[in-house]
């Protein structure tokens, strides 16, 4: 019994050592099996390291590796276009993207070549093209991308006048920025490719300066409005004047035709009468005279006729006038 007390061999173990070993081995096998598979998403590529040394790059799907941490996989989203904003931040992307109201002058304020100040917001889009380079060449990747992007935009804006940055050079800046950024990133072996540089808001500094710039736009509108007013007046009046001119000429033409035709008519009538008159001068003459008088008297009833022998006519006339 004393032997039983001191010797562990005689203790009634809940499991036999054999069972423990088997359990351990099974656990090891399960752990090994689990750690020898890894998944790679369709949008990713995986870089596999064997004892920290680069071994291979694998594509999407279920892949195998040597278990127990001997091989490690690092998944890199190589198909996803990533966006990085400068001078603004996106709060919640969506159908109507909400932008954070914060301002980032330390990113967006720049000096232009004519020593003015301008506020530029932009975004870059990039894709990781070389996952191995992306993982192992540069330490502070995001910071590096931000630094280069900012520096490149500063250089490009610094080489142009504020007006051309606001206007004609906009697309050129975006193009140049993409080229220069890619050149720098290639130099560092960052393993990314900038696919687009989008210039967002380019505005003069907020407040009074911006108001002054807007006032120029307004002034430009005012200028066009004033010119149009003048032009409108001109377009309203000149055709009218042309019409009036044409009218005056038409009236004159009418007068001319009337005058000449009348003369022709008068003369024709005279000549016809004259032809007859030649035949019997005295008779025609007195007939014409009498006809004329007849016409005059028959048209007017208020003619006073005074006898040639009457000496004092006036009182009578007055009396008659008074009774009316």
């Amino acid at each position, binding site marked *: 019994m004393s032997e039983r007390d001191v010797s562990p061999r005689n203790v009634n173990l809940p499991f036999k050592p054999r069972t423990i070993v088997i359990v351990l081995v099974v656990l090891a096998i399960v752990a090994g099996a689990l750690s020898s598979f890894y998944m790679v998403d369709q949008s990713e590529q995986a870089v596999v390291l064997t004892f920290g040394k680069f071994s291979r790059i694998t594509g999407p799907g279920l892949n195998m590796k040597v278990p127990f941490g001997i091989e490690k996989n690092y998944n890199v989203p190589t198909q996803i276009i990533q966006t990085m904003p400068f001078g603004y931040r996106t709060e919640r992307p969506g159908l109507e993207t909400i932008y954070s109201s914060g301002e980032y002058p330390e990113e967006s304020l720049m000096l232009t070549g004519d020593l003015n100040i301008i506020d530029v917001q932009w975004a870059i889009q990039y894709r990781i093209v070389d996952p191995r380079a992306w993982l192992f060449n540069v330490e502070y990747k995001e910071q590096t991308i931000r630094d280069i992007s900012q520096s490149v935009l500063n250089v490009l804006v610094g080489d142009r006048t504020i007006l051309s940055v606001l206007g004609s050079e906009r697309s050129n800046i975006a193009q140049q920025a993409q080229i220069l950024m890619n050149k720098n990133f290639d130099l560092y072996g960052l393993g990314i490719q900038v696919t687009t540089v989008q210039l967002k808001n380019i505005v003069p500094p907020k407040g009074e300066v911006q108001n002054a710039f807007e006032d120029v736009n307004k002034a430009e509108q005012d200028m066009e409005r004033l010119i149009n007013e003048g032009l409108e007046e001109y377009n309203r009046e000149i055709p009218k004047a042309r019409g009036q001119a044409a009218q005056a000429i038409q009236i004159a033409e009418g007068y001319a035709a009337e005058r000449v035709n009348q003369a022709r008519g008068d003369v024709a009538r005279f000549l016809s009468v004259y032809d007859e008159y030649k035949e019997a001068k005295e008779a025609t003459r007195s007939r014409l005279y009498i006809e004329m008088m007849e016409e005059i008297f028959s048209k007017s009833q208020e003619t006073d*006729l005074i006898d040639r022998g009457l000496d004092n006519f006036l009182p009578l006339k007055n009396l008659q006038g008074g009774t009316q």
Partner: protein
Amino acid sequence: MKKLVVVLAVLAVIAILFIAAGPFYVLQEGEQAVVTRFGAIVNTNITAGLKFKMPVVDTVVKYPKKILSWDGNPQRIPTAENQFIWVDTTARWKITDPDLFYASVTTITNAFARMDDVIDSSVRTIVAENLLREAVRNSNYINTVPEVPETVIKDPEGNVIEIEVAVGEEQRFFENVEKGRQRLSEEMFDRAVQVIPQYGIELVDIIIRQIRYSDDLTASVYNRMITERNKVAQRYRSIGEGQKVEWLGKLDNEKRSILSRAYETSEQIRGRADAEATRIYAEAARVDAEFYEFWRSIESYRKTLPQFRKTLSTDMDYFQYLHSMNGN
């Protein structure tokens, strides 16, 4: 059987202890390591993989082999013309000589402190030696880009008004820069690079991330921008006023000349007609002047007499038979 289990267990414990003590270590891609034994460097590893070291006595110090960033605080520096600007620079660097790095600075934090001194001073020196435009601009590209006016305005004669000249934005000439920002960065780099290698560090580049005016300078620049814009706005409005008045003047001019030309033409037409009529009547008169006069007179009486208030004497040819059947 039980003996075997004990032996196995002991072996396993020893193996675990051995591995835990660490004769092996893994050096990842992008890492490098200095192995020290009692403080002295015994080995340097710069390639990735499974590495061996003496357990217990050896210590492994890992450093990144990647390109690292250095981000300085913006500095307020006067340029050669004594204008104060904030210059924000960053640099990229890497540890190229881990032994030397271990010996001279040991930690990355220390390295940053050393670089702050070196790079800040070289940035300060170079900026202070150069004019503002050398730091702001990179090239003379600015003089090749036309400052195009946004609108094309035509005057009443159809000539395009040269807005750019008119608004005081004529193609300005900017003093050429001799070096430009890129060159300044390189000069900063050249200065810094003379000092940096003694820390086992290789500088990749120094870049100017941002240049800003100091606050008081910003205020005066804002004022200048505002007055410039006001001038331009004023100019646009004056052009508008001027053009409007010009249009109205052109209107008045054309209207008058159109109407007076019409008057001239119509009077000519009338005159010609009058002449023609006169000629026609004269022709008739020539046939028999005396009769024509008589004819014309009775025609005229016919027209005019009925309108008069008449008091006639019977002492007229017409009434000759009124007093006597033989006339008179």
